[in-house]
């Protein structure tokens, strides 16, 4: 039963992808991209990847769409009706498709428990997580501890994106642009969305905090939490206007969150060195290594959450502030 549903979802995914590429209006394309992400999240969930599904839904369907819409409101929403090098594209893409399909014939089929991917490293993680770290969510254990160095890198990717957007958009716009000057924040004077929004935003943020601190026990963690809380604040900014959102959380605080979060993560790693372990070896943080691991994961997840939330909000504000310039 679930497989029929999966096939249905996958087919929808393909249809949506084709529709996105064919759509001439960029708003339509962006909304379809959001749907695409949501379908992708559903697929991930069917394939037992709850954490990834949550992330894809929060980041892919939520934040990405908002950033796309911000950028669209600053540019043109219509694609000019012309194609580039269509034949080159078709040839490249055709070769690529053949290559991949050639590869699929030897791939282990879906769900085969004897596939090599389930043999070597993965069972070790599943087996040793209760012993070394003792938290139920193995994904969080690997993310935070076993492969914590990757996650540190990931936080710095987000940090790089944040300073990049701030750097690129810190140039004052000089020339005229072809955009329509907008009324400030379309929803500002509408009672119903405002009331509902005020009702919902505390719960969104609360849910974000739940995801943050429940990450060791269920799906969730710093990235998802940061994205969800950022979504809540962005909703507030849409309803109450850009400036009141900035009054609530000023830019400097956001930048401080990004810097603080990144430094918190790195600082935990350095603290581990200072206390005699390897970089990011949380076992030395407490007398009992298992407690130390849990403590370390708690700290670094907090760092990740802060950094991601601050970075996404900084990026949003950098785009949104652009509108008021012109």
């Amino acid at each position: 039963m679930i497989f029929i549903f999966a096939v249905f979802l996958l087919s929808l995914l393909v249809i949506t992808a084709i529709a996105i590429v064919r759509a001439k209006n960029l708003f339509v394309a962006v909304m379809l991209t959001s749907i695409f992400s949501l379908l992708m999240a559903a697929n991930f969930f069917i394939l037992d990847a709850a954490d990834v599904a949550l992330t894809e839904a929060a980041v892919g369907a939520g934040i990405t769409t908002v950033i796309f819409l911000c950028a669209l409101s600053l540019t043109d929403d219509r694609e000019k009706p012309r194609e580039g090098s269509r034949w080159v594209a078709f040839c490249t893409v055709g070769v690529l498709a053949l290559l991949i399909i050639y590869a699929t014939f030897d791939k282990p089929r879906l769900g085969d428990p004897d596939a090599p991917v389930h043999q070597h490293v993965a069972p070790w993680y599943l087996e040793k997580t209760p012993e070394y770290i003792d938290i139920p969510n193995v994904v969080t254990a690997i993310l935070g501890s076993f492969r914590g160095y990757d996650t540190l890198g990931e936080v710095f990717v987000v940090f790089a994106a944040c300073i990049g957007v701030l750097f690129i958009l810190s140039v004052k716009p000089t020339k005229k642009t072809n955009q329509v000057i907008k009324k400030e924040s379309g929803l500002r004077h509408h009672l119903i969305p405002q009331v509902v929004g005020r009702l919902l935003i505390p719960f969104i943020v609360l849910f974000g905090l739940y995801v943050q601190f429940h990450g060791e026990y269920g799906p969730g963690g710093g990235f998802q939490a940061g994205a969800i809380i950022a979504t809540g604040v962005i909703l507030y900014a849409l309803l109450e206007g850009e400036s009141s959102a900035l009054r609530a959380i000023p830019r400097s605080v956001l930048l401080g969150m990004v810097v603080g979060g990144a430094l918190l993560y790195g600082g935990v790693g350095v603290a581990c060195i200072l206390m005699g372990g390897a970089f990011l070896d949380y076992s030395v943080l407490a007398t009992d290594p298992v407690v130390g691991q849990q403590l370390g994961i708690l700290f670094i997840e907090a760092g990740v959450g802060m950094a991601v939330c601050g970075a996404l909000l900084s990026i949003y504000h950098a785009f949104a502030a652009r509108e008021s310039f012109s």
Partner: protein
Amino acid sequence: MIDIILDILSWILLLLGGACVLIGGIGGLRLPNFYARIHAASLTDSMGNILIFSGIMLQAGLSLATLKLFAIMVFLLLTGPTATYALANAALLSGLKPDVGSASDEPQENKLK
């Protein structure tokens, strides 16, 4: 015995909900103009939402999952109509007049913004 009754009841609710959403979907495709379409989509959506969630809650029985489902249902009941309102409002502000007789929306983009 009570299990079977609950099961049947929940399936009835689920099927009704599914039918509601399906009708809404058809309405969204077939109705002539923007306001008629969102009217079809939003009303059936709310109804389908209640029916489907009630059905699933009956399946789940008394557990934590039911509480979560209830929370999600309330969330959707709040956001769905609000989103519809915002959509209609934006359409109105961008100059799309509600007109019972009109067969289609001339400026196609208007319903997208």
